[in-house]
């Protein structure tokens, strides 16, 4: 579970996950990679450092849902981290259903959170009451009771308040348009929630969706959502300049970054080793294209 203020029982410690992650270029464990990327996002490093590790497409962020409890548990954390409350709630529910214990305290806790965020207080209360019947979780459950029927308390809470702001202003059909369109609506609703745009840009880059990435920059660069480019976003902007001449200058890419890019291209043209660029988006896309 994600550390978000009150999780004294949480096993999710981003620093530990990042420090203990073992990168293996030969075989990607999507569950571990997703946790790593989530840890990077939670610490504000996803768009800067994701290519320091071997990446494998957007399934390394949003693992494929296969009706398994463990995957549901991971996905609820991923969507919660993104600020996608509807899908965080859905996956917490799915994981609860698939749990043979018929009692999954972590997922009930998440359902308390999502329902508090939505202001669905009667069912949030039900979950608080149920979680509170487990002695080990009583204190955690009771810590949420003060939010019941108290919008001001929810909105002033650093975690729940931020998530509530992420709820899009107008309803949309989750995932039918694609997760990227969902994320855009979250960013528009809460531009200060920077994790959402880091996830959005990361998903585009991992799936090599350069046109969509440019559309994202065109809409959000220079706004509260994306005042300046993260490392990988700047690297991608350099590549976009191949088609859109001088584009890198329009989105504030540092000159040093662009020089690195021209050096990368020169080494590529001359068949020289690219190992010094292994932690860049350029290397990732070269590797993807060669597979």
């Amino acid at each position, binding site marked *: 579970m994600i550390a978000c203020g009150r999780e004294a029982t949480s096993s999710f410690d981003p620093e530990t996950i990042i420090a203990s992650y073992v990168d293996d270029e030969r075989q990607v464990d999507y569950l571990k990679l997703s946790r790593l990327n989530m840890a990077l996002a939670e610490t504000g490093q996803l768009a800067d450092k994701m290519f320091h590790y071997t990446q494998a497409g957007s399934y390394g962020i949003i693992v494929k849902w296969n009706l398994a409890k463990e995957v549901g548990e991971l996905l609820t954390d991923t969507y919660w981290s993104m600020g996608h*409350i*509807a*899908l965080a*709630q859905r996956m917490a529910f*799915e994981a609860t*259903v698939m749990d043979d214990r018929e009692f999954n305290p972590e997922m009930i806790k998440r359902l308390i959170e999502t329902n508090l965020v939505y202001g669905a207080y009667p069912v949030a209360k*039900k979950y608080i009451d149920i979680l509170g019947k487990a002695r080990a979780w009583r204190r955690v459950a009771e810590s949420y009771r003060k939010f019941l029927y108290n919008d001001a308390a929810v909105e002033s809470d650093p975690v729940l308040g931020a998530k509530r702001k992420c709820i899009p202003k107008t309803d*949309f*059909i989750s995932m*039918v348009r694609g997760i990227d369109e969902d994320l855009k609506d979250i960013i528009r609703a809460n531009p200060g929630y920077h994790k959402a745009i880091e996830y959005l840009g990361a998903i585009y880059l991992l799936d090599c969706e350069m046109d969509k990435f440019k559309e994202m920059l065109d809409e959000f660069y220079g706004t509260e959502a994306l005042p300046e480019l993260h490392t990988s976003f700047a690297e991608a902007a350099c590549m976009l300049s191949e088609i859109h001449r001088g584009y890198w200058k329009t989105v504030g890419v540092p000159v040093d970054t662009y020089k690195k890019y021209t050096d990368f291209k020169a080494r590529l043209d001359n068949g020289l080793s690219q190992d010094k660029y292994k932690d860049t988006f350029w290397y990732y896309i070269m590797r993807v294209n060669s597979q």
Partner: protein
Amino acid sequence: MRKFKALAIIALIPVACTPKVDDPAPDAAEAAIFPDYKEITVPPNIAPLNFSLEEGEEKGVAILENGGKKLVLKSRKGGFNIPADDWRELAAPGSEIAVTVAVKEGGKLVARKPFEIFVSEDRIDPYVAYRLIDPGYEAWNDLGIYQRCLENFRETPIFTNDKTDRNCMNCHSFKTRSPETMMFHMRGKNGGTYVWNNGEIDKLNTKTPRTISALVYPYWHPSGKYIAFSVNDIAQFFHSTNPNRIEVYDYKSDVVVYDVDNHQVSSSPMLMDTTRMETFPSFSPDGKALYYCSTKQADMPQAYKDVRYSICSIPFDPESFSFGEKVDTLYNAAKTGMGATFPRVSPDGRFLLFSETAYGCFAIWHKDSDLRIIDLQDGTFHTMDDINGPDADSYHSWSGNSRWIIWASRRIDGLYSRLFIAHIDKDGKASKPFLMPQKNTSHDKDLMKSYNVPEFISGPVLFDKDEMAGIAKNDPGTDVTFK
């Protein structure tokens, strides 16, 4: 056992040494109890109406009186459990039970405003069948169809999916509330429609080249010879902000009728109109009319908010297995601006009960869904404001004597459906509804399953579960053909 006897004796002792409860003050507060059993009408054969004090009021006394019978109960952990024998004496048909609840405040018992429970002379069918499901999104795990004796608290499984590799089961249906003639579907692994009739189980493969899907929403013909079904291409999506959470919708749908003896389905061009979507069929009690819902074919899911179903009927001739050619519209969505689902005619033929919602076909996920009734004698609508709650009120069924309805409502917590019962008098007027009583009053608050598709039955279903499981796993099934 000795301990339980002792507790029962203690519970009855207060009759002899009644705790002192002063008369309620003129401005006494209403009793805060769960479930809300104040001023309700109940059948004489209903199980005891156990209730509890709302949180924070753990100590109290309840005094129940009817005629010469008086029962005084002390709360235990805030709950009042009424012994079945005492309840039977109290719940005399056509009478009123006076109830006073007193709550301990400042060391003394303070009476709340008394209330009455009206005991109707109209009995209720002794059983109700329902599915217990997670009110969820895509996954399922433990799932089953259960039956509950309404005269006590006994719940037993009709069939559960632990016997069939945890597959999905749905759409249980009975011929005129008979426990000896029922059907339900299994989906996915062991998929098929299972018909329990005359002591035998038939497994059916119901997808035909001429139908959109396998058979879906059922309704038995009163003769038992036919079952009307919809065939639907169903999908669902998840809302981002809408409190309704989930939208279930059809891309397209038709209505067909299945001939039980000949394993054939048939339909009418008016029930398979490619310009319309038809669904939720049900027969009239005399079996001569088929009711269903219908709407214009729409571009789904984009148009999901614009889809509103009308209620129509078409003549049906059970002798020749044929349909009439004139469609009547009983509820016109174009005129009401709302949509209707699940038309159900009372067994006496007088009233048509349905769910009404602003749009769509899956009212259980619509917080605005309410029950409505049409008087088929004069075509007038009754709003039934007395029984609808602030959340979804949907799937409903009639008792055999047409005096009771049971339905699924999400009014308690906004998500988990619970069963409510209401009396309907001969003029279609509903009494205040009550939550199906439970032995443990916290049951409905604690249970993380929804009650789904409640159907009255006149007795328990007794088919052999192992035989059913064996047929599900080993019988290839009979292919249904289109006539």
